[in-house]
């Protein structure tokens, strides 16, 4: 079944390229035909994924227990990469702000019932970058980096989604706090939407509340409405200055090449660790090429 999904993904990729070519050539009829073919392929992919979902989740179990000892190559295996990518996307879409792997995993556990080792998320970003550099814009979204406002380099440990506005992915000096407050609001709102929120979600809210002034109710608990209100109150203090810094950085980032705009500039990078990463990346790319 996984092969079918793989085949569909390849077809979706090919169709995207075809659509792009048709649009660039100005052939609207052909573009329309290819677009509808793409949509049906995407629907087929969703259906195929739904079918294998329980099996896929069960398969992720043992590898999750293997933890850090797990070799990074295994995350590039077909099947395991896809669910993780989806999970990270789900959690980030709930938060709507760049977040660290730890927070992403906690949010996913709280609202979607499954967690994953944060070490795998780190290699996910590398996989995404590799995929983008091989075939740009072949996927509907990428898990990408948040960029530091000063050097437009990848901000340490933060992940974002490529389809977000550029401003959202810029990290100025006030942004960590502003994003934290926004995340608190989103989590509170998500809890309010659920009739019976799971215990893990309540715990997460409690942890957010502990770090927002005035968010803890007199009884010591965390009420979603109160947390949201307290976070909003503090957010008004930082919002304007933060938005200004982010907009200025985003303006500069628009001048970057596509890949750098998503994954950050690399011109200052010099670390041995990165060289090792690059080597691992190259090895991974070879393995993938061999697999295909």
């Amino acid at each position, binding site marked *: 079944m996984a092969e079918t999904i793989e085949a569909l993904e390849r077809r979706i990729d090919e169709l995207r390229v075809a659509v792009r070519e048709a649009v660039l050539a100005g052939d609207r009829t052909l573009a329309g035909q290819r677009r509808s073919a793409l949509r049906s392929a995407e629907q087929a992919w969703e259906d195929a994924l739904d079918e294998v979902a329980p099996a896929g989740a069960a398969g992720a179990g043992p590898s999750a227990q293997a933890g850090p000892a797990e070799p990074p190559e295994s995350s590039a295996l077909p099947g395991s990469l896809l669910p993780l990518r989806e999970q990270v996307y789900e959690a980030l879409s709930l938060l709507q702000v760049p977040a660290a792997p730890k927070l992403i995993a906690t949010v996913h556990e709280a609202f979607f019932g499954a967690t994953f080792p944060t070490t795998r998320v780190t290699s996910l970003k590398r996989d995404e970058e590799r995929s983008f550099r091989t075939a740009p814009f072949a996927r509907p979204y990428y898990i990408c980096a948040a960029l530091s406002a000063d050097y*437009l380099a990848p901000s340490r440990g933060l992940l974002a989604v490529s389809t977000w506005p550029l401003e959202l992915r810029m990290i100025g*000096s006030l942004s960590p706090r502003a994003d934290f407050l926004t995340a608190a609001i989103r989590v509170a709102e998500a809890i309010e939407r659920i009739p019976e929120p799971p215990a893990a979600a309540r715990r997460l809210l409690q942890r957010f509340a502990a*770090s927002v002034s005035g968010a803890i109710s007199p009884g010591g608990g965390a009420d979603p409405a109160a947390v949201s209100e307290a976070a909003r109150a503090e957010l008004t203090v930082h919002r304007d200055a933060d938005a200004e810094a982010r907009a200025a950085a985003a303006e500069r980032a628009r001048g970057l090449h596509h890949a750098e705009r998503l994954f950050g500039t690399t011109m200052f990078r010099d670390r041995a660790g990165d060289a090792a990463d690059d080597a691992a990346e190259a090895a991974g790319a070879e393995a993938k090429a061999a697999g295909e």
Partner: protein
Amino acid sequence: MTGRQPSATGQTALDRLRGRALPKNHDARTISALAANPGCTRRALMDAAGVDKQRIAAQAGFPAPFGQSRFAIVRGNAFEAQVKENGAAQLLVLLRDLLGLDVSEVGYADFNDVGGNSSAEVRHLHTRHALTAPDQPGRTLLDHPLLRLKVGGRPAYLEPDLIALRLDGTFHVIEIKSFAVIDGQADPAKVAAAAIQSAVYVRALRDLVSEAGGDPAAVSHDTILVAPRDFSSQPTAASLDVRRQLGVLDRQLSRIASIEDLISQYPPALTFDLDPDAQGRPRRPAAELAAAIGQVAANYAPECLATCELCFLCRDEAAGTTGALGKPVREDLGGIEYIAQARSLARGQVPAPEQAEIAALLLRAAQLREQVLGEAV
């Protein structure tokens, strides 16, 4: 910083002491240790010369299993990461509650790398720029800035956990430690170690500010210690006045600068060179090396076991002296250097005139002991 560097002749003498080995650079821990035992000439000399004390001790036959426990490092890092995660959310609440930090002060800047470059030089330049530039756009907390302190003419890079800016208009050094503060009380030895380490950062930060033409008083001597509260992993913060530690540190640093006076007391042939072969393996005979070390007086105290790589060697050497039993014992037995001497005085040996007072005390103590336990000293 002027006035803290040995002269050229002093530096030559120090290079000779070190021999062919590369100088070992200081870090916050070794600089703190400098101030831990100010009376030790051996340590002062070796540290000024940048001697690798660990290798010297091993070659002289007293290897010390030295360094921080792996578990302590992991725990420390985990706690630090927890306090700093999500824009130091936990820390901000603490600073607001305990120190009245304004709600608008939430700026957070990461100095762990500069655009992906984590070399010490680049990070230090970035730190210096950020700390001394006239406009500091919303930067309240600086995460792992890289400071530099010159020790004996060589730069040592120092990495404070955090610097809080603009807390009542001044810089405050924040040190995050993983030892527990239980009921508002923590292990005094650990707090003392944290205080001296913070003092090292304050010194380096003041140097940086004054080099840029600023007022060193802009760096507060009140540092902030963040540690887990009680038996939880929830952080708590306390203010720590490090003025005394700064005084000790300044004295030690200036002592390294005037190290010439100290070196001139020893024969010019004195060296701690390990006579390495082509592969860098030391060949100098242990006895010869130990004799060279023995020429420089040490001031052993049991506390050295926690801070100095030469501790086992010095302890062996100090066996039989009153100092080996700890500073309080040595002070109580003022003027008596050896344990055997104290015992013979207690047994009733006629004391020298200057020892009459302490001899009487010892005699009385021995009598009491005999009455209670029924055995002689």
